[in-house]
């Protein structure tokens, strides 16, 4: 079966309290046929990694508006790797300066989605790049 939904974790690590974007994306991906696990605000990297493991998601989408991405994202990708989840696709959305993108990609992020990205673009990227289903 290839039509089984792709499972995505949408998480907001760190301390900023603006989750409208994450919720709109979660809702939009639902409408694109994804199964979206939404975990809410103020997640620690450990919470994100635990949820990714227990839910066996194919994609982890991180929404960060606080500017703490250079601290939070590498910690999350490291925890994912340590738990054997190196094949999970990690994407970041929010306010990320262009200069930081190469370092995030070095840390294991597949793509960074800035303001103006459409939900259709995100959905297309995830369909093309999420790990193969077994």
């Amino acid at each position: 079966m290839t039509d089984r939904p792709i499972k995505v974790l949408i998480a907001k690590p760190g301390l900023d309290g603006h989750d409208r974007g994450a919720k709109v994306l979660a809702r939009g991906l639902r409408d694109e046929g994804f199964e979206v696990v939404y975990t809410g605000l103020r997640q620690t990297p450990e919470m994100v990694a635990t949820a990714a493991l227990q839910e066996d998601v194919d994609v982890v989408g991180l929404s960060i508006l606080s500017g703490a991405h250079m601290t939070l994202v590498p910690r999350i990708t490291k925890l994912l790797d340590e738990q054997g989840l190196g094949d999970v696709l990690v994407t970041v959305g929010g306010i990320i300066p262009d200069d930081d993108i190469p370092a995030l990609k070095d840390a294991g992020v597949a793509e960074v989605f800035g303001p103006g990205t459409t939900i259709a673009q995100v959905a297309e990227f995830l369909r093309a790049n999420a790990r193969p289903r077994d």
Partner: protein
Amino acid sequence: MREAAPATGVDPMARGEELAEAAVGGDRRALARLLTAVENRTPVAEAAMRRLYPAAGRAHLVGITGPPGSGKSTLVASLIERVRAAGRTVGVVAVDPSSPITGGALLGDRVRMQAYAGDRDVFIRSMASRGHAGGLASTSTAAAAVMDAAGFDLILIETVGTGQSEVEVAAAADTTVVLEAPEMGDEVQAIKAGLLEVADLVVVNKGDRPGALRTAAQLRAMLVAGASPKVGAGDAGDRPRPKRPEVLVTTASTGDGVDELLVALDRHREAGRDEGSGAEIARLARAEAQVWAILSDRLRDALHEPRHAEATRATLVEVAEHRLDPYAAADRLLSTLGVDR
């Protein structure tokens, strides 16, 4: 950093047994992968189940159901806290609905259950209902059995927000908890058949809201006092008797009343060990529900096999065009599989 894709030639029997062994041995990633296989109803899941099912049957399976927004997830979070404080391990299967239009789902139950990230003795899994209508996903019972075999003491099965008649959870669980919010209805609502009838425990949550105690009193009056008493042997024979649920009040957000709920859950489980308690009937109902569901899938799969697919489709078209009635169609399809009735 991507792992190689699993080779297509991997033997599902071997993979299933390998995952089952690892999950029983405490490997949480293996458990998570196994739950995915179960949800997707793959051959890997079947092979794993063969190994796991005999190891299941030890956990206390508790169903939590009730209307949307009545506080199921918050109550589950509060129960996790108390159960962990008592040193017991807990697994959660939390079901949210799939879109009937796109097949997508928003699984939001974890929002209230995030405090246990570092605790390997709490395992929470969200499931989309994937078109199944009874309040659970078709694979929720199997998922709970996998967690049971993996050694969790208590397994909480949280349904989608339910209305009046999504009673399936009662077959999936040893103990069924039905949540109500204050002021959700009058006494007539409480005596309607359906969801409240399958409750072993009725919990009025949001106990700090006005009307909670009155709602609980109304429910008690209608469900407990109003239920026919147990009849003696010979009287009314084996006619099924309604349950007489305990009615409790909780405030899940503060934890008020949750200790009492836990005590009531344990008490119900203990009572289930007594002969004639109905627990055996419940276990048989669970077995039946599982086997029947699989049987129905297998029948459908068999009828869609290449050698039958065309005849199956032709029969369905005849029904759609009202040239054949659905009963005769079912009989014809059964006979193509060699089943005569």
